[in-house]
């Protein structure tokens, strides 16, 4: 009921009070730094992916390593799509955005690990493993932000991981195509995440917004 809702709201506010910088500057700095860090991490991963993708596409060979190679998106429907209508993106709230990010990276990480298993050279495997670790870090970072903002973590989608299996149906070319799209989709998601977290960061920067955020969160 309303009374329970009011009580919960009050409790939440009271619980969050120490987090308000105006009240306690020396305590938990709130989600701000972690959002900034997550943003920086997306930038860093972007940077990291650029060199990894270059290496990997060269490994795949032409035409995948050609700059203007832009194949149609075939057979990779299971990959989370980062591209979204601007209006739709704007309409998303923070929780939804964070949840989508989290879910997308969870999937992508899963696919990437598969990619790593197939990689031919040790150097490439090392790079992919490192990137996986970093992506794992990003996931943790998003989870941290969500936790800081009080959002529950989305439940892992059952069957997501097992679905990615290099089936014999795939031809070698199609397999490479999948790899290509995986890297491309990763890149797109990192761009999008950077935007998301930049937006969130800007939103979080004024200290007073902490309370507002929670009120908004309550409302959500």
């Amino acid at each position, binding site marked *: 009921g309303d009374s329970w809702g009011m009580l919960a709201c009050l409790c939440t506010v009271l619980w969050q009070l120490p987090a308000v910088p105006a009240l306690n500057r020396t305590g938990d700095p709130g989600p701000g730094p972690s959002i900034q860090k997550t943003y*920086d*991490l997306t930038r860093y991963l972007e*940077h990291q992916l650029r060199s990894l993708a270059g290496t990997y596409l060269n490994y795949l060979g032409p035409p995948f390593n050609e700059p203007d190679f832009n194949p149609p998106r075939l057979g990779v429907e299971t990959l989370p799509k980062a591209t979204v209508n601007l209006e739709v993106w704007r309409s998303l709230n923070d929780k939804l955005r964070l949840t989508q990010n989290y879910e997308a990276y969870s999937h992508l990480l899963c696919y990437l690990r598969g990619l790593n298993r197939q990689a031919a050279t040790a150097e490439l495997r090392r790079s992919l493993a*490192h990137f996986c*670790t*970093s992506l*794992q*870090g990003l996931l943790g*970072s998003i989870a941290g932000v969500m936790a800081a903002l009080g959002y529950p973590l989305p439940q892992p989608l059952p069957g997501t991981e097992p679905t990615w299996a290099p089936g014999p149906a795939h031809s070698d070319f199609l397999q490479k195509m999948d790899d290509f799209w995986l890297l491309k989709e990763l890149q797109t998601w990192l761009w999008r995440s950077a935007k998301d977290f930049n937006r969130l960061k800007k939103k979080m920067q004024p200290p007073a917004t902490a309370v507002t955020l929670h009120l908004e969160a309550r409302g959500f």
Partner: protein
Amino acid sequence: MFTLQTWIVQALFIFLTTESIGELIVPCAHIHPESSVVQLGSNFTAVCVLKEKCMNDYHVTANEIFWKTGRVTVPYEQYAVINRTASSVTFPNITLINALLTCNIRMFGQINRSVYGIRIISGLPPEKPKNLSCIVNEGKKMMCQWDPGRETHLETNYTLKSEWATEKFDDCKAKRDTPTSCTVDYPPVYFVNIEVWVEAENALGKVASDHINFDPIDKVKLNPPHILSVNSSKELSSILKLTWTDSRFKSFITLKYDIQYRTKDASTWNQVPPEDTSSTRSSFTVQDLKPFTEYVFRIRCMKEDGKGYWSDWSEEASGITYEDRPSKAPSFWYKIEPSHAHGTRSVQLKWKTLPPFEANGKILDYEVTLTKWKSHSQNYTVKDTKLTVNLTNDRYVATLTARNLVGKSDASVLTIPAWDFQATHPVTNLKAFPKDNVLWVEWTAPDESVNRYILEWCVLSDKLPCIPEWQQEDGTVHRTYLRGNLVEKKCYLITVTPVYDDGPGSPEHIKAYLKQAAPSKGPTVRTKKVGKNEAVLEWDHLPIDAQNGFIRNYTIFYRTVIGNEIAVNVDSSHTEYTLSSLTSDTLYMVRMAAYTDEGGKDGPEFTFTTPKFAQGEIEAIVVPVCLAFLLTTLLGVLFCFNKRDLIKKHIWPNVPDPSKSHIAQWSPHTPPRHFNSKDQMYPDGNFTDVSVVEIEANDKKPFPDDLKSLDLFKKEKVNTEGHSSGIGGSSCMSSSRPSISSSDENESAQNTSSTVQYSTVVHSGYRHQVPSVQVFSRSESTQPLLDSEERPEDLQLVDNVDGSDGILPRQRYFKQNCSQHETSPDISHFERSQQVSSVNEEDFVRLKQQQISDHISQPYGSGKMKMFQEVPAVDAFGPGIEGQVERFETVGMEAAVDEGMPKSYLPQTVRRGGYMPQ
């Protein structure tokens, strides 16, 4: 290792004990605990339990157990027998130990046997690691280090643990040789916080450090930037633009920079203000640099928020700023060289190259302008730093500018005065002194306003000419140092010339050393004069090349061979010194040292000997002695001369004149007193005028005393003889024959004088030799000579007699000597015979040893002929073979001794018969 050792030992014991009882594997006893690591300072107890079988076999119980650590038996106080089979040992407060503890039994009361052993190791549990810190070098994996705390003495493992909130990372086990650090296996994931701690574990415990949580990006140490270029600007000579490439991190973190620069030769760095480089960038323009100067740059970077570490410095890169016009006019001076042409001067203008910081670029050339008073100017463009021009004797003004790519310097102006210009206003109180390894020059400015000063200096040397170096100082400067490569131990002649508007002032000079040293050689001392008690030493000043400093004083060391050395200090201006109070006739060794402020140097040693006598001392002794002797002699002679009467009285006492005796007067038979001198042989008054020659033929014994006196006498008379001998012919008359002469003059003289002097002619020949020269003795008789004109006739007579007789050597002798006179025709034989007879008569008288007065007077009266005839007889009495001389010499002695008569007279040979013995 220890474990292995322990097992070997145990195996050995087991083998030993089991073998002895014929069984395998089963040990005789065991210790609890099996092996032990004991904490330092704690108590430790071990229990040895014997097996029943052993106890039975060896008949031992726990009482027979004793413990050993190594080879040392543990004291029994530490044992405790628990029961029949077990015995324990306790070590209280255990120290640092790593030893074998053995359980032993004593079998049959005397055989000791080890039955089991364990190793005890003591140590400490690990301390909680402190100061855990991590660093991520760009491109490398994370490395963490910590402070492990105290030494555990045990094998301790350190494990670095790291985890994310959602994930654990692999442990990082520190290596044995680096137990204080570990580098993780995984690449860092930036922007995700990581939790790191370290766990330390050993046999005594396990402890973890505090956990640290950080983002690896905050622990990163970036790679240093790489400087791409250092570019100068043509527009601004004071800037350089630095460009570099950064770490890849600049795309996702903000960087800040640290830029340092210095000139190429400098050692300290200048810092670009940090606030100017606090954000990510790839270039920077450094300002306020000097023109045409090479600068060296370096750069480093780190995360902008200051978290993490500064990168290493980049490699250095250098660049040169662009040129600017020379900032200062060159130093400018001149030298007038002697010129042959009349009315002109050869002037060498000279200048210094500008130092780089004033040249501001590469000097292309110099422009010299010479302006004669109220006349056109001449321009010269010179690449060198000197210009020689011929000028008239007028006043000139010279200007000099240096030119580089950008522009010209200000002009140096120098007035070359007319040839008859009198320089004035020198600087005063000119001083030069070394300090901090350079030679400082200090002066007091003249009252006039000085444009600048010119300092010139050169090395003073005997070998090399003075080649001056020079430098210019501003008119406000009163102290500077010589900017040249000065050398120690060289004498520098420094000249300071003030320069006024109308020309140079009078120069002032001073000598100085950069650093003095002891002279390289000592002065060579020598004697100038050596006296009995003093010596004048002299030396030359040291050559300037050997001085090595200002000679402050000399020291003269002198000593005898045995004596102590004496040192005398002498002022350096002297070149001569007199050593006094020396000992005569002594060898002295003298050397000399010259001293500068820094020390002295001995010269070679010089030896000299003082003479025994001073100069003139011998003369001073000898001359007075000689003079004294001479004076004494003279006085003696004078005395003798004055007192000759007295002496005569002593030597030749007066013989009374018989003619004046009373008897003579009294006797009625006294012959008439006056004879005609020519006709009367023996005039009355001349009775005593008789020379008596006593010839002693028999007795040859000489009487030295009388002989001597005779010789002396002879000598004295020698000189006068010749003079008194009258004409040459008359000398022949001085025969040994005594002669009696009488004359009127004799008679008259007889009256006036009571004494009669005589003259003796001695024919001196030695032994059988015939004297070649007649020796005459002559008295200073006052008695008038007998009439000598007639005497040659007497000789003539003798000659004749000789010739007639032909037997008398004496006569022959006379004949020889007088042969030249034999021909004298004008002398009557008669007179001659008269004289000879008188002599002979006298001889006769003497031989008969009769009283002279009595006997001689008689023959006179009796007759001359008789006496004359007796002459040969007289001669016959003589030995004849003996030399005449001897006979004559002995004559006087015979008279004195044989007759016992006083020295009333000496026998005389009468010369010419004109003298009479007395």
